[in-house]
């Protein structure tokens, strides 16, 4: 050191310099490795989550069906009103044609009919109502089997388990195997998962009601929080005087964004349902509740994007004689739009996954038809997952995972749209 100061020259190749160089490289390498480690852990967790969901959930994407030839006996169906008919008997008769030996044994008969889903009779009825000319004909139907047989067919029920611990007795399994041998059993894609509403029977339960409920709730949430949020943000950022009051409002909004969602649920329960007497379980009310949560997110995102617009653009517009309002709406807002949209979609994606506030306003009811309007009772995707996760039937285990996968795919889609919008509308100046 003294030598260097003496000669007033730094030795760029000396050992002290080399040591410092090595130290710098080492610390940079450590940092890189730590970063890589953090990312691998994050990805590993994500992979585990998705893998476990897929490994249990994929069973729910297929459903065991049996192809049966049904004689639509005119004696059992009222031709004038096909809605009324003894379709249960028709189904029993159909199965009896496969197993003629049990025709007179009531107990055996009951075992036999338990193979088919309880909904089978209704799907046949619906077909007949749609086309009454079918009465008197023999028609081939593909009907879902009930949950235990579905589990059996998917290999989820262990045939080695002692009979008394098994849901299906040996005889029932034998019956099913006979049908299988005759080539009547198939396992097509489970479209009911999307096209049916909820049901007590797992083989019939679907997400239609939840998806439509979530859609209405998000739509309401968007229509409320987007204009109000942007309006509030524009006012606060561009027009409000900067003083103690606006500081206080700013702090409050930031705090509001961090309030646990269950609190908003309680608020909605007390105010929307309690004071205003709005309907329980309605997606509209759910959307209003979610809007309370999304608002701060949108306000914060909008203010940040407005702030990020370079001041030179404002000056340019002011310089040619634009009013404050013309500057904001003609120049600043369009430039801030990509950021605002991204923030909004991320806020909505959060709202889509929000469960607690919807539980509090009763969107976890058991509702077997999809809502026709936002004011009808409905569930939402996360609350449907909650309900299914709580159901004792084995079939709901895989359906819960499948529903989570559906929810995740909606989330990924929304985030994808956010990224797309950001890239598409990103402008340089």
């Amino acid at each position, binding site marked *: 050191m003294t030598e260097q100061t003496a000669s007033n020259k730094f030795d760029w190749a000396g050992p002290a310099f080399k040591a410092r160089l090595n130290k710098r490289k080492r610390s940079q390498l450590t940092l890189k490795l730590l970063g890589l480690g953090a990312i691998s852990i994050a990805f590993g967790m994500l992979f585990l989550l998705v893998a476990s969901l897929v490994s249990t959930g994929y069973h729910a994407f297929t459903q065991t069906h049996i192809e049966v030839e049904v004689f639509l006996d005119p004696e059992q169906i009222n031709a004038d009103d096909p809605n009324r008919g003894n379709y249960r008997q028709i189904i029993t008769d159909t199965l009896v044609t496969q197993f003629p030996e049990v025709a007179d044994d009531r107990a055996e008969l009951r075992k036999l009919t338990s193979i088919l889903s309880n909904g089978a009779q209704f799907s046949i009825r619906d077909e007949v109502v749609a086309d009454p000319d079918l009465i008197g004909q023999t028609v081939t139907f593909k009907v879902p089997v009930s949950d235990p047989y579905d589990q059996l067919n998917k290999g989820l029920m262990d045939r080695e388990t002692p009979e008394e611990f098994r849901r299906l007795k040996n005889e029932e399994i034998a019956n099913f195997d006979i049908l299988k041998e005759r080539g009547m059993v198939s396992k097509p894609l489970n479209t009911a998962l999307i096209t049916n509403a909820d049901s007590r029977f797992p083989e019939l339960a679907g997400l239609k009601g939840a998806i439509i409920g979530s859609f209405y709730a998000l739509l309401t949430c968007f229509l409320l929080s987007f204009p109000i949020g942007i309006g509030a943000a524009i006012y606060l950022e561009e027009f409000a005087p*900067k003083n103690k009051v606006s500081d206080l409002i700013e702090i409050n909004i930031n705090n509001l964004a961090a309030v646990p969602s269950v609190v908003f649920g309680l608020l909605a329960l007390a105010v929307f349902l309690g004071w205003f007497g709005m309907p329980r379980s309605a997606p509209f009310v759910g959307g209003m509740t979610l809007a309370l949560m999304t608002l701060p997110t949108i306000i914060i995102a909008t203010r940040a994007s407005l702030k990020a617009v*370079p001041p*030179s*653009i*404002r*000056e*340019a*517009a*002011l*310089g*040619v*004689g*634009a*009013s404050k309002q*013309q500057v904001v709406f*003609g*120049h600043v807002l369009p*430039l801030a739009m990509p950021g605002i949209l991204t923030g909004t979609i991320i806020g909505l994606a959060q709202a889509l996954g929000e469960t607690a506030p919807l539980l509090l306003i009763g969107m976890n009811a058991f509702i077997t038809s999809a809502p026709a309007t936002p004011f009808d009772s409905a569930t939402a995707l996360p609350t449907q997952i909650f309900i299914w996760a709580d159901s004792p039937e084995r079939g709901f285990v895989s359906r819960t995972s499948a529903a989570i996968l559906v929810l995740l795919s909606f989330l990924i889609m929304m985030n994808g749209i956010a990224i797309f919008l950001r890239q598409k509308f990103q*402008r*340089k*100046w």
Partner: protein
Amino acid sequence: MNDMRKIERDVKMTDTKITARNVNVHYGDTHAIKDVNVDIADKTVTAFIGPSGCGKSTFLRCLNRMNDTIDVCRVQGDIRIDGKDIHDKSVDPVQLRAHVGMVFQKPNPFPKSIYDNIAYGPRIHGLAKSKAELDEIVEKALRRGAIWDEVKDRLTQSGTGLSGGQQQRLCIARAIATEPDILLMDEPCSALDPIATAQVEELIDELHRDYSVIIVTHSMQQAARVSQKTAFFHLGNLVEFGDTDQIFTDPKDPRTESYITGRIG
């Protein structure tokens, strides 16, 4: 070329366009402009020179009340344009800025098409009754901004896609599209190459036949080339104001002398 223009320059004794009396500007606690008094003549180019941070931009921005848009900024004193107090209640700052045009130090075109950049001002002030008239205004402004030939085939392309120098000329064209009587230019050539600078200077020379032009510049040569009057600012004070020739050849104040000879700055 420069000398020729210097010879051409005639200091016309015209009416006073802007009078400023006891102007003080504070940014919070910073006293940026101290008791400035100045009379700026019509149809003249006035140059503001002075070391960095001395308040040239600040004073320029007082003249179109651009400082109103800065929260911490306080402007005191009397500024009159054509005898009318610009801080009078009856004066709308937005209206004022429409006829006191401004060109900023950094080129700041709107991220819109070249055409819309120019058409924006005339549109919001309703200067054109028809599309044809607007087209005409746009073409005229771009021609006067010495950029028409370069952009006439791509008027629909974004103004931000132009080079820095082209952007600055676009901004000048934008500022004159609304036909202001006063044009404030804050270091308009700091981003330009010598050729574009010469074009802008030619433009200024032409503009001053109709307008009063005030230009802030760090280039002594530029001030000497384009202006008839020069004001020298130092630490917020207007130290000396007079004919450009006199300021550069026979400065009265020692501070002016040391600045133009390169000792302060």
